[in-house]
């Protein structure tokens, strides 16, 4: 297990940032999700050894998060969200520099810098000053510096932010290649749910400092609730919605009149039809839907 935390708690003064958070990282890419203030950054700070938790324990690649902070930072790669570079450097020098700071011998770091810059697609511009790089190139550069010391675990913080569609597609393909073929575990923190859905087999969802959901996406999609999509005659949705909500169903309606019904665990779908009968509405379309990550996120976090 590359990463395991149990009962983590951390507060900034009176504000509790993390409370009783426990999870284990499975194989492949894992998504870290949560609204602003959910505790994602605090969790990353603890996992990188910048903060010591008040309570709880954890290991990253077998290193204790309280004792072995420097060892953790040597072994993991971190790609920050913000653009970051050292002014006046070119990509090779920059990447080799951070390889060296990770503990690589200087010559090895330089050789390796060329390799990873080729891998992320910056071979043509590796001697160009970083000040002149585009947003997409800076994103690849951040990936290169995170990979240069060959980490076993990679923390990626919003890796596709500020990218055009083509740049985003290329970075996603790169991450997918790393996670699925290169024997590198990836923890991906992103607000773009489509990215997480495309890349990750598992997710960790935080909300208000607590673990809202965790596990394989396939399992999470099915265990807690079922999602049905249906349509009723125009003008009948309101009364039907009230009837469903009285059964503890969460109901969302799209602009084109599609009604999404999230049924709690243990409730039979026939209850929907019984509710329709009671409300006197006619169901004209009914299908069991596969819940998207967006649906799951909205359900566990309680936001649309």
């Amino acid at each position: 297990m590359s990463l395991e935390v149990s009962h983590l708690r951390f507060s900034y003064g009176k504000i509790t940032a993390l409370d009783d958070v426990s999870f284990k990282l499975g194989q492949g890419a894992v998504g870290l999700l949560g609204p602003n203030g959910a505790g994602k950054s605090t969790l990353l700070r603890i996992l990188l050894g910048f903060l010591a938790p008040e309570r709880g324990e954890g290991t990253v690649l077998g290193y204790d998060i309280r004792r072995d902070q420097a060892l953790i930072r040597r072994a993991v790669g971190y790609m920050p969200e913000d653009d970051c570079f050292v002014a006046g450097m070119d990509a090779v020098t920059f990447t080799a520099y951070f390889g060296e700071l990770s503990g690589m011998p200087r010559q090895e770091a330089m050789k390796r810098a060329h390799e990873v810059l080729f891998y992320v697609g910056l071979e043509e511009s590796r001697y160009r000053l970083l000040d002149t790089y585009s947003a997409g190139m800076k994103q690849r550069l951040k990936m290169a510096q995170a990979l240069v010391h060959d980490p076993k675990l990679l923390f990626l913080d919003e890796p596709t932010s500020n990218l055009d569609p083509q740049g985003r597609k290329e970075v996603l393909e790169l991450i997918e290649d790393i996670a699925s073929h290169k024997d590198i575990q990836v923890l991906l923190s992103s607000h773009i749910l489509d990215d997480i859905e495309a890349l990750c087999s598992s997710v960790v969802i935080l909300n208000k400092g607590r673990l809202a959901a965790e596990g394989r996406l396939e399992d999470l999609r099915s265990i807690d609730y079922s999602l049905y999509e249906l349509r009723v005659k125009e003008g009948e949705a309101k009364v039907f919605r009230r009837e469903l909500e009285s059964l503890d169903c969460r109901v969302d309606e799209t602009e084109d009149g599609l009604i999404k019904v999230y049924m709690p665990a243990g409730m039979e779908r026939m209850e929907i039809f019984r509710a329709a009968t009671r409300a006197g509405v006619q169901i004209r379309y009914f299908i069991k839907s596969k819940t998207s990550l967006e649906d799951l996120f909205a359900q566990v976090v309680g936001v649309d």
Partner: protein
Amino acid sequence: MDVIRARGYHHWDGRLESRRFPWWPVTRTGIRLAFRKKWFKLFFAGGFLPPVVALGFIYASERLGDFSSLLRGNAKLITIDPKFFMSFLTNDGLLFMIVMVLVFAGAGLIADDLKHNSLQVYFSRPLGKKDYLLGKMAVVFFFVLVLTFVPAVFLFVFKLVFAGSFKFFLDYPWLLLSIAGYSGLLTVFFAFYTLLLSALSKDGRYVMILIFMAYFFSQVLSAILRNVFRTPYMVLFSVRENLKQVGALLFGQKPPHGVPVVWSFLVLAAVCGLSTWVLNRKIRAAEVIR
């Protein structure tokens, strides 16, 4: 992207090691980056002008007969003694060159990292805040020592070589310690001074002006206050005069102003203390992940 896949990613088969001096790559990089600046090279080269002139004086002092027509009875002007070395290390020209070197080599040390968010990449490595700051300070150490300690020691050695005896060394056996002590003081003070100002802004150009102005404005302010209040204690507002005061003490000379040297020392120490406080507040590893 298929092209990227085809090139592949190869695992590195080496072993990551703990460094005895984890700050050293930071220092080496800071020095290399400074030499990429045209104006820096100009002022750095200019910083060797005072030692070249001093070397000329030392040579002339040993060849008084050859230069008698030039000196015309002013041989005292080139008496080589501890005061000569003090004058070399505290002269306005050298201090100006040091400040200008720091304007170009030191302004961006922290300001650029703040501007370009690179702290988060530094601290995601096994590099502590102390290592980071020590690495940055060592860049200033290097340049100031190269402009002060190294030439002063060379001048000392050349004095012995030109004299052809160890008499000068035997007369002033403590002089090398004074040179080391004063160069060390300049180095430490300018390191804290530069990093303090570099951490105050994300704009490197603004910091360049700050480094230059803080040094010279302190002199102007001190001169104005001395004229207004008619008290020598106003020299405490001048960075340069405080350095000269402490320098005089270290070289066993009379301080240039009628102010106890301990006050000047305390002013310099206060700047270092302020710098430590500011750096501690500005550079926080835990806050680099937002």
